[in-house]
């Protein structure tokens, strides 16, 4: 299960993810991200503080989000990764590609 909460901080959209981002839930996030980006919301922070698990399907959605925001001169930033989630990013080599911050505040300040 994946729950997505939403808040706005200035012109930055902060999506809080809770639960698991895997093959069965990643399409929910993909639809949400695609919709936001298509409507011009290109500064996005994903708050991972309550995310327990991410699979490669989830990574693919993040990659898609990062590419599309970047193409539109925006950014997708991740924040608050738990250590075992962070490990998945490290193994797949994603830590060097995506913007990762320790807290949502730090992430929003980076824009």
């Amino acid at each position, binding site marked *: 299960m994946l729950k997505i909460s939403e808040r706005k901080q200035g012109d930055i959209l902060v999506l809080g993810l809770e639960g698991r981002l895997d093959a069965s839930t990643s399409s929910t996030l993909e639809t949400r991200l695609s919709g936001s980006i298509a409507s011009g919301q290109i500064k996005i922070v994903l708050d991972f503080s309550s995310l327990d698990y991410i699979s490669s399907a989830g990574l*693919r959605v993040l990659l898609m989000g990062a590419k599309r925001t970047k193409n539109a001169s925006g950014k997708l930033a991740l924040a608050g990764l738990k250590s075992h989630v962070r490990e998945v990013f490290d*193994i797949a080599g994603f830590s060097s*590609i995506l913007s990762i911050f320790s807290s949502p505040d730090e992430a929003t300040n980076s824009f």
Partner: protein
Amino acid sequence: MDSLIDLFISLINSMAVIIVVAYVITRSHFYTEILEKKLTPVNQLLLVMIFGVFSIYGTLSGIKVFDAYANIRDLGPAIAGLIGGPWVGLGAGLIGAAHRFLQGGFTELACSTATIVAGLMAGLVYKWKRGEFIGVSGAVIFAIVVELVHMGLTLLLSRPFDQAVVVVKTVIGPMVVANAMGMGVFAFIISNLMKERATEAEKRQIEGELLVAREIQMSIVPRIFPPFPERFEFEINAVLEPAKEVGGDFYDFFFIDDNHLFFVIGDVSGKGVPASLFMAVTKTLFRVEANLETGPQDVMSRVNNALCRDNDTGMFVTVFCGILDTGTGRVQYANGGHNPPYVVRRNGRIENLSAGGVALGIIEEVSYKPVEIVLDKNELLVMFTDGVTEAMDRKGNLFTEDRLIETLASYQGIGVEETTENILSAVRSYAAGAAQSDDITILVLKYLMSGISD
């Protein structure tokens, strides 16, 4: 007033009979062919007969009103025309009309003509819709129009006129309502049936796609073991258990010269046919790019660059690949975002080959770190995909690396085939029947000679 209510009840009664018969017919094999537009002469004739008899039943179940019958005779030909076209509608109409004509009465001409017209009109609607069924509300409106035409014909053709007016006034309400209701329910049955069939067809298509993905995957990885029975320096074995919705796992191994074996294991993000195709491309690229001079890290960079071109899907693949020098046990390897493999040493120690790089297909011009180890006699290199470590039990708990290490530790000094089997059965018994959500792939290499370090 009572007689009007009686009229209604009896009309609805006969309508109910027709509906039951219609339901049985629509569930028959013959009707499936009609829906698939296989309107063979035999099928058309069958439709004509069935709905002709319907029409006759409509007449017989009618109630006499001043020497005329309130009935649902037109319903049979109307339905026949709507699902079978003008000829079928006309045929059924003629049967119903002939029977009605023989009953006599001063409206005989008008009533029989109306029944034929009903079948013909329905056939024209069929033509107009190019064979598509008109839908529930369309069919109901059509039935109402047919009855109004019927009433018009009665006024036009039946004499004495004032008697015709009395008959029409009495039966117009019940007949319009009963025919419209009968048609509504029949159309509802048909529409439901068509929806059911559409869902079924969609389901079959999805299953077909899953099958395609699985076939791509299973036909592309080497499946004959032992693959190199003449080689005494090493053993290699692999299993790939695709999930129902196929992920994009693959493995491959081949000689790039007499004493160098190239091997690779990978996992494409995503599922189904797209993942299978991406996997097939990746595997092919490795076959093309693999060579001894440049080492696995450069092979990987070149494959990565090729995969990055025109990749808008965000799909990527994690890969571990290496080259075994069969003469010395030396293994050069590179890791592109893949789960680090394990080496089981002779003394039972289990080492993790961590060397991270970026998964392939994401950004161009990435360089990968070359790493080298030496395998000694009977040492194992165990490669796997996350389908192993992330296999779930019924509660959603993961198998994890720890359980994999435990499994490796508890069996020592065994062959490659037993090793893959042990891991697979450990994962299976852990999952205990929980659905397999991702492909499970294991590739095990065992060196059988004494390793030679430089």
